[in-house]
């Protein structure tokens, strides 16, 4: 899976905007949006919010978790705990990047938020590697991926799956009777 595909999925998340135009309800396959009235907040998917924002037709209200105090609290908790802590949004990394790139004028303290989210991400990736290593070294057969987001899984997926395949083959060497007999390729 490509990182841009994960970003595409993240664009389905909803975000609140304050439009400066008026439009009746619009009917889309994914659901009805609107009606849009100037000054009244309305929930729309991120892809639409960014499109309207780029055309200067709305103001984006940042999600409640995109706040310096809350993120600092989250970062400290993430550093303290050994396990993964629940994240405010399953697409926190993608949404931060999208909203900060296109609507940084609507988000207070954009630079601090960017740094904090990056800190949280780095802590979680370090934990992910640590747990992958202990998963391999203890020869575990299954693991629970609680509170991990798609983007985090995606960065390690190719490497971990290939390693687990090799590990499986090397483990099955120890019990040659269980595989398909000798010289099966002749």
């Amino acid at each position, binding site marked *: 899976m490509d990182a841009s595909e994960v*970003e595409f999925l993240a664009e389905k998340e909803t975000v609140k905007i304050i439009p400066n135009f008026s439009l009746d309800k619009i009917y889309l396959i994914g659901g009805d949006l609107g009606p849009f009235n100037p000054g009244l907040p309305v929930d729309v998917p991120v892809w639409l919010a960014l499109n309207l924002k780029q055309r200067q037709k709305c103001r984006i209200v940042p999600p409640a978790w995109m706040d310096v105090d809350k993120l600092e609290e989250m970062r400290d908790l993430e550093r303290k705990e050994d396990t993964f802590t629940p994240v405010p949004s399953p697409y926190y990394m993608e949404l931060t990047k999208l909203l900060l790139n296109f609507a940084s004028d609507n988000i207070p303290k954009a630079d601090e938020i960017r740094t904090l989210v990056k800190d949280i991400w780095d802590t979680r990736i370090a934990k992910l590697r640590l747990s992958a290593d202990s998963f391999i070294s203890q020869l575990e057969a299954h693991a629970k991926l609680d509170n991990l987001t798609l983007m985090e899984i995606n*960065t390690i*997926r190719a*490497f971990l799956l290939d390693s687990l395949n090799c590990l499986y083959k090397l483990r099955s*060497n*120890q019990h*040659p009777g269980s*595989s*398909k007999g000798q010289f099966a*390729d002749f």
Partner: protein
Amino acid sequence: MDTQSYLPVKPGVGMEENFLSLDDILLSHERLPIRTECSFPRLGFLEKSSDSHDIPEGTKMELPLWLSKGLYEKKRRVLSVELPKVYREGWRTVFNADPNVVDLHKMGPYYYGLGSQMLHFDSPENPEIAQTLLQTFIGRFRRNMDSSQNAYNEDTSALVERLDCLEKALFSSGQSGLNSFQSWEKGRASQLTASSLVLNYRKRKINDLQP
């Protein structure tokens, strides 16, 4: 995005080989020390060191893996295969002590593949060999993972030069994950680029086609 003009077949790693895998074809040419258990008439040309027509019983020589695998049989003893040095007791102790210090590229470069293939020749040390292969892989896993996930935009040749071919493949898949994430983060993923197939494409000249 890594697009290739063909999809390479991955090596089989375990006791079975993948017929179409280039790595496994190269692996089957590794030479093994063997001892003949009966005489091979008129095959003296296989053994470069002597001029005789036949290979007498009890000769020590080297044969490639594919040939020794074909000739080896449990009931009719045609030849016996000796373990290569790296899979013997002495080296196994080294691998069990600290697998990270060993230069597997020099030892192999198909350390895991050849080790798994050695299990075909019923040696009494088979369980220990399989165990050492597994422990070596596990012991080297962390370093391989960290180096492949952290080396961004730098020269990786120093990191991969001590890796076995199998670990090199893992390293490059770790790098592809890192690179795709980094290029997304920098906003490079949204730009369209020419496919590597098109870049490599060269107009055919009529002179190349006609001898």
